[in-house]
């Protein structure tokens, strides 16, 4: 019996790790003894309900300020936004598992099946899975990545143009391309056509140009055929192959998001406990810096997500746009970085030593 109680208490103590250290030191024995008093004889493991209760309230205790409800709201907002950013970073890392882009020779062979008898010229292969201005991201590009050209960071591809297309019936070419792709094992999406209003006024008798996107997937190849009708672009047909999202991106995003949320919660809790009961000016300053950080981190997300969702739903896609684009990154990286600077300043302020240690704060400052 005493052995089983001892094992049970050890397991309760493990669950108490969700509480801050100083809190455990102050209240850990009291909580474990109460749990042990309540446990029926012979129990060796905490119940699921007890475990959930301890973890949940331990995480709450990490925030300090026991009488505050708003601290939980701010902590949740911080944890969610960092879960998203961490998931995006993890997904970017996991994209490194993608196979290199198809070689020029292999892409040319694919293009030949789409447009037999036609010369697909100027076939070029991006040097990386993601590129900026057609090149892998380099240190020199960082300044422009942050502002103002973060939107230029995009998928690399192996791309070619169909030459001598002036004599081609483009509508028939699109239909034939769909048929040929089907015949060679591609999973083909519905062609997406949109009319281009290149005139900009009512006097020119309405738009005359249109463009069609055709996308298909086979294995980890995603092909996009872009056809422009009635426009000035020569040649009017371009074909490109990108990599489909590699499967490790999904579990890596979930794991990265979970780790990011936990770290954000712990760091937020540490700063909250450190600043509780401090000088009012210090508390106002840290609250202001937190507000600035959260505002700048969250601001781009609804706009980018809404815009990308509409784009993703209206045009056929064989892969989701990468997670960072949904968060407005790196197009609005400046917001993110300024938010980080404000948050780090807040953490530095929170780390300032107290002038006079207050024994009554022992529980709250772990």
């Amino acid at each position, binding site marked *: 019996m005493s052995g089983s109680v001892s094992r049970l208490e050890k397991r309760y103590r493990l669950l108490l790790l969700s509480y801050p250290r100083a809190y455990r030191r102050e209240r850990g024995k*009291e909580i474990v003894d109460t749990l*042990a008093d309540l446990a029926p004889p012979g129990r060796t493991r905490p119940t699921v309900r*007890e475990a959930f209760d301890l973890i949940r309230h331990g995480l709450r205790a990490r925030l300090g300020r*026991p009488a505050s409800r708003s601290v939980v709201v701010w902590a949740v907002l911080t944890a969610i936004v960092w879960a998203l950013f961490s998931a995006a970073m993890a997904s970017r890392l996991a994209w490194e598992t993608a196979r290199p882009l198809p070689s020029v020779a292999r892409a040319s062979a694919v293009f030949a099946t789409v447009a037999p008898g036609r010369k697909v010229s100027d076939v070029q292969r991006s040097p990386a899975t993601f590129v900026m201005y057609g090149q892998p991201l380099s240190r020199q590009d960082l300044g422009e990545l942050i502002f103002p050209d973060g939107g230029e960071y995009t998928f690399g591809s192996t791309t070619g143009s169909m030459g001598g297309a002036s004599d081609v019936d483009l509508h028939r070419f699109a239909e034939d391309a769909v048929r040929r792709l089907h015949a060679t094992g591609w999973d083909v999406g519905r062609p997406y056509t949109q009319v281009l209003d290149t005139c900009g006024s009512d006097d020119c008798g309405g738009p005359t140009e249109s463009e069609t996107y055709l996308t298909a997937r086979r294995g980890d190849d995603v092909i996009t055929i872009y056809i422009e009708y009635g426009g000035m672009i020569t040649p009017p047909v371009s074909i490109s192959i990108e990599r489909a999202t590699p499967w490790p991106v999904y579990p890596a995003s979930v794991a990265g998001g979970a780790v990011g949320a936990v770290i954000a919660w712990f760091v937020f809790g540490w700063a909250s406990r450190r600043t509780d009961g401090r000088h009012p000016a210090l508390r106002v300053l840290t609250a202001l810096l937190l507000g600035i950080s959260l505002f700048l981190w969250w601001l781009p997300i609804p706009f980018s997500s809404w815009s990308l969702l509409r784009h993703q739903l209206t045009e056929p896609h064989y892969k989701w746009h990468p997670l960072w684009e949904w968060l407005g990154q790196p197009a609005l990286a400046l917001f993110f970085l300024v938010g980080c600077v404000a948050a780090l300043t807040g953490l530095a302020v929170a780390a300032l030593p107290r002038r006079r240690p207050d024994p009554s704060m022992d529980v709250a400052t772990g």
Partner: protein
Amino acid sequence: MREPTFLILTALADQPRHGYGIIQEVDTLSASRVALLPGTLYTALDRLAAQGLVERDRDEVAEGRLRRYYRLTDNGLKVLDAEAARLRQLATVAEARLRAVRPRTA
């Protein structure tokens, strides 16, 4: 005030109690309808202490187990009294309405 908080304050109204004692008393007061878990109880005690409604009374060790007793503060008594009056007033109103609708049930 939420029901568990009301019950914790009520459990401490007549005498100081330790955590296990509060949980047992809340179980009795609520006719086993509210089963507090220690994580929930100590979070509530932290909150009530921060609001000045509850304070530590004394520590005892019994059979190697720490018993930390809590008691209501004067303010805690006032708040509990006000909440009890509020609930009593609501119950009175509800009972009056019920008597009007179903005279025999009241």
